């Protein structure tokens, strides 16, 4: 016989039946069920296969401590693997699948691993695949087979179709856990006027009250709960979040929560960041399993779970139940189960229990056996009987049963406190870790502090609520915190004397008593070592039920007190958090903001193919007909070299530098002089970091006595702005300068080519563009269509070229006018690809060369550095290592055979010596329509002085291309600069 639904009882709505499926079979449950309670009620006992050995597993708990019943929910893109059946709320149409078994759950071929169990013992992977005699490659080879044989569920590879959102909140008091303690803390704090958030992982409030049957403060528990919940939900200063898991506590009172929403909400999960002035932790306690042979068999469960299924869900896990215990808590549980009409035997390891406790059990119909301990569960896919020994070691009897309970004591749940670095304190009397002293306003209450009696839990809640109120200047009736404990007889822990067979310490990770013993013998007897050596305490379970038992095993083997061994520190998250919840709405195109140039719409209308560069969308190329990018950029380059090309450069960083000391500031941040720059002139400048490495380059224009217009690269616009602010605020507050980012205020275009002057003269009539009136590097302010514009005659293409800026609102108007003018002159638009190619032909450095490692000298710009003034980075650039002659330096590269191609990222090396890091690398390449072959620039150790004229191999092992290249000066086209004058 397996589990079944009792005729009556439980907090389920028997009027609301729900259909669901497990491995394709249609089953029925009720509203209020979890997947686990519904499976049990349907007699489903075998629900999973274990991690390493593929052992049959059932449901062992009724909550977050579940080690065995991990299932996959949903299918297709909505597949959610490794879901705990014991916490999954049953909804209509829920689809559950067993996982990690093949071909099916009952006949699982992977179970062959059980026969080779020795292979999977502690440290097996390390010894066999990574140890002496194995190369790193052998692990890479074996890993895929091992990963297939051992593991949990499989995630979907499809995009997640669900929606997630994130929320921020702040409150006076955050209460985590809505059992009797948490509820009372929230109530008292709220009545004192505090803003309270009460969080409960379960879909129902009540915690332990839902599973127990005792009265609380003389009132029926269900009635007490109903009244409290109604008033909390009705209070305007209390927010109750059920189905919400607090997974992490962080600095300064910040908590991370994930709320699971109902399907009707249209949002699957909501991620909360809560900032609380004070936090109360009322997370309860988890029952520990007992360690004996086959303690993982389906039908072997925690006693508290057997009780919860009877009381909360009206489900019996079997018809003949044996409960093995070492403490008082199992008496009430056994009594409840017996009262539901199930044959119940209680096996207590202690021999000296008498008085009201056993009387209560006996009067409920429980058969009581004192001084007996479990040795081994019998039965393969389900427990059939229990072999028992006497506590003194004498052989005992074999008891028939179809389900059994384990009650090995209780572990207060302190994961969140541990996340804050608070070490727990071992209490020998209670055989439990109790919370240590927190340095922050975080207070643990209830069973999480080792308080076992419900009334005391409620009282500790009131004390914590009052404490929070007093701390925040409110008044509330003072209450004392009760002492931990509350049992009539002391617990008799660690009864693992006469174990037979495989006894699991960590059921989820298939770590046995024998594994822990072996690890200890090999010296891995510290908790953190044991965890990594055996996997104990890993995966979704994180040692909730196994951590303390493992310490006890080590203590027994090593001798000495348990608290001398140490504990592991828990880190967030307390339970798995879906990636979807973490990402929220920030996914796909919402991952980062998209920046568009003021000319964007005009470019797109014209047919530009856009490219993401950082946050910006920039025009990549302007295809004509079916042109590819490679065809288009060559054509666009020809437009510039032969007629006139226009390019949107609005994304360049633009900073207004204003004030009497504006020139002084630029003199300090640029390596070259700017104070002496004439009004109406622009200059190309390079700035360094403190450490002498190149930070950025660009032109700055002197517009007036006290005003410069600085441009930066698109990529470094924000960095340069922040850098200038830092210098002015932190180092030179005496400089009378203001810096303002005006990147978004100006739309700009580059106009380049022999006909550039002709084109601009037609659009800006109030300026004289003749060579004398508007010389190279000149800056002029004029008007375009009645709007002020600023123009500088500067060039990165080597052609006669200008940059023109107008207020951003007029960007599209400017673009259309430029495009009409360019088209009329047989020119047109060019994009980023051509822009890059034009600058490579001229040997100008760009992003790939300004890589955060190159110095001025490396880039061939050393002569720019002023010797008449000091500048940032000027001292550290003289460090001996930055002056070495064998540093990678900028060179030009051309293929030895004209028609051959080579690619950026290729390694430069001498032919015949292609190992290691080579002599340098290719940074940028392009096909040059003017020269009729490919050209590139790169950084090469020793540079031109050592390699000029010599041949090297450009080796691209990833794309499988090897090209012989000649090292030349990095100026391929018009090195004399004749074209600049048009």
């Amino acid at each position, binding site marked *: 016989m397996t589990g079944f639904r009792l005729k009556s009882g439980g907090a389920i709505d028997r009027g609301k039946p729900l259909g669901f499926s497990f491995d394709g079979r249609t089953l029925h449950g009720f509203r209020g069920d979890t997947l686990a309670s519904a499976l049990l009620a349907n007699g489903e006992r075998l629900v999973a296969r274990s991690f390493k050995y593929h052992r049959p597993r059932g449901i062992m708990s009724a909550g977050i401590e579940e080690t065995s019943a991990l299932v996959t929910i949903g299918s297709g893109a909505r597949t959610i693997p490794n879901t705990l059946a014991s916490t999954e709320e049953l909804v209509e149409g829920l689809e559950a699948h067993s996982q990690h078994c093949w071909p099916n759950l009952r006949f699982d071929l992977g179970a062959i691993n059980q026969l080779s169990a020795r292979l999977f013992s502690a440290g097996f992977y390390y010894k066999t695949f990574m140890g002496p005699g194995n190369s790193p490659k052998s692990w890479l080879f074996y890993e895929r087979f091992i990963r297939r044989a051992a593991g949990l569920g499989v995630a979907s590879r499809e995009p997640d179709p669900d929606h997630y959102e994130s929320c921020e909140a702040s409150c006076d008091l955050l209460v985590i856990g809505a059992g009797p303690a948490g509820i009372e803390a929230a109530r008292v704090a709220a009545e004192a006027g505090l803003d309270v958030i009460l969080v409960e992982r379960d879909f129902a409030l009540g915690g332990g009250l839902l599973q127990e049957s005792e009265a609380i403060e003389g009132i029926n528990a269900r009635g007490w709960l109903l009244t409290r919940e109604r008033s909390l939900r009705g209070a305007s200063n209390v927010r109750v979040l059920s189905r919400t898991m607090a997974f992490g506590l*962080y*600095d*300064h*009172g*910040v908590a991370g929560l994930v709320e699971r929403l109902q399907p009707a909400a249209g949002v699957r999960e909501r991620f909360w*960041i809560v*900032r609380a002035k004070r936090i109360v932790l009322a997370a309860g306690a988890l029952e520990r399993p007992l360690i004996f042979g086959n303690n993982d068999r389906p039908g072997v469960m925690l006693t508290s779970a057997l009780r919860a299924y009877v009381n909360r869900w009206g489900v019996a896990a079997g018809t003949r139940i044996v409960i093995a215990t070492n403490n008082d808590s199992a008496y009430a549980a056994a009594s409840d189960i017996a009262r539901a009409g199930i044959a119940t035997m209680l096996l207590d390891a202690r021999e000296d229990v008498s008085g009201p406790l056993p009387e209560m059990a006996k009067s409920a119909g429980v058969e009581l056996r004192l001084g007996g301990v479990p040795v081994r569960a019998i039965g393969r896919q389900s427990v059939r009987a229990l072999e028992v020994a006497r506590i003194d070691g004498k052989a005992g009897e074999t008891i028939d049963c179809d389900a059994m309970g384990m009650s090995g004591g209780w572990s207060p749940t302190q994961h969140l406190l541990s996340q804050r670095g608070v070490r727990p304190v071992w209490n020998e009397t209670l055989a439990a870790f109790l919370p240590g002293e927190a*340095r922050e306003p975080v207070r643990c209450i209830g069973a999480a502090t080792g308080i076992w009696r419900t009334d005391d839990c409620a009282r500790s809640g009131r004390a914590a609520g009052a404490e929070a109120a007093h701390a925040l200047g409110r008044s509330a009736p003072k209450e004392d915190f009760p002492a931990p404990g509350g049992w009539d007889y002391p617990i008799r822990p660690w009864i693992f004397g006469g174990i037979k067979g495989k006894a699991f310490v960590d059921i989820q990770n298939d770590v046995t008593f024998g594994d822990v013993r072996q690890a200890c013998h090999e010296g891995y007897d510290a908790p953190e070592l044991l965890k990594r050596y055996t996997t104990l305490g890993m995966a979704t379970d994180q040692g909730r039920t196994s951590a303390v038992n493992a310490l006890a095993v080590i203590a027994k083997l090593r001798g000495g007190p348990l608290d001398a061994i140490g504990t592991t520190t828990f880190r967030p998250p307390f339970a798995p958090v879906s990636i979807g919840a973490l990402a929220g709405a920030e996914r796909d195109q919402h991952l980062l903001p998209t920046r568009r140039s003021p000319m964007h719409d005009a470019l797109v209308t014209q047919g530009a193919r856009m490219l993401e560069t950082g946050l910006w969308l920039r025009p990549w190329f302007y295809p004509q007909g079916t042109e590819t990018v490679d065809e288009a950029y060559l054509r666009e380059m020809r437009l510039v070299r032969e007629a006139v090309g226009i390019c949107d450069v609005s994304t360049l960083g633009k900073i207004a530098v204003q004030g009497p000391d504006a020139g002084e500031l630029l003199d*300090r941040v640029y390596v070259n002089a700017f104070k002496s720059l004439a009004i109406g002139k622009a200059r190309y400048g390079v700035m360094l970091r*403190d*450490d002498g490495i190149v930070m950025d380059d660009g032109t700055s224009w002197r517009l007036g006595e006290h005003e410069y217009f600085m441009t930066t690269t698109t990529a470094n616009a924000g960095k340069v702005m*922040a850098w200038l*602010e*830092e210098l002015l*605020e*932190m*180092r030179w*507050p*005496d400089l009378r300068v203001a810096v303002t980012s005006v990147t978004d205020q100006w739309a700009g275009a580059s106009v380049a080519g022999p006909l550039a002057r002709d084109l601009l003269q037609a659009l800006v009539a109030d300026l004289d563009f003749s060579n004398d009136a508007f010389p190279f590097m000149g800056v002029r302010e004029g008007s375009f269509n009645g709007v002020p514009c600023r123009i500088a005659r500067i060039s990165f293409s080597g052609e006669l070229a200008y940059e023109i800026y107008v207020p951003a609102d007029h960007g599209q108007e400017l673009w259309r006018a430029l495009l009409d003018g360019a088209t009329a002159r047989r020119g047109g638009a060019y994009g980023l690809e051509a822009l890059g190619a034009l600058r490579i032909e001229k040997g100008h450095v760009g992003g790939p060369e300004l890589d955060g490692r190159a110095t001025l000298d490396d880039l061939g710009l050393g002569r720019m550095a002023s010797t008449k003034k*000091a*500048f*940032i980075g*000027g*001292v*550290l650039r*003289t*460090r001996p290592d930055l002056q070495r002659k064998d540093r990678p330096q900028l060179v030009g590269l051309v293929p030895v055979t004209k028609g051959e191609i080579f690619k950026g990222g290729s390694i430069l090396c001498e032919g015949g010596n292609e190992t290691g890091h080579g002599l340098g690398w290719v940074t940028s390449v392009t096909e040059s329509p003017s020269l009729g072959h490919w050209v590139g620039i790169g950084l090469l150790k020793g540079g031109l002085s050592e390699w000029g004229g010599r041949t090297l191999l450009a080796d691209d092992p990833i794309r499988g291309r090897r090209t012989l290249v000649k090292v030349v000066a990095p100026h391929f086209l018009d090195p004399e600069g004749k074209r600049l004058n048009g």
Partner: protein
Amino acid sequence: MLRINCPFCGERDHSEFTYGGDANIAYPELSAPLEAWIEAVYVRSNPKGPHRERWQHSDGCRLWLIVERDTLTHAITRVEPARTAIPGLMK
């Protein structure tokens, strides 16, 4: 997540701020000797306990602040505008 009480904007998450390093570093004159610059750029004390740090409220008022943070507990005990907090910064 730290909370920093900006003297201009009020208490905000540290995600609005950008860390700017040790506030005890006095950057030398631009033409100071190499050793002085090596000291300023590369040598840090990495204390356990209270630490004076530079933070910019980059997603707020953009001003630079001196924040005293305990590196052990993350407790923030003092936040001041950089201009008034650094002695001798304002001439």
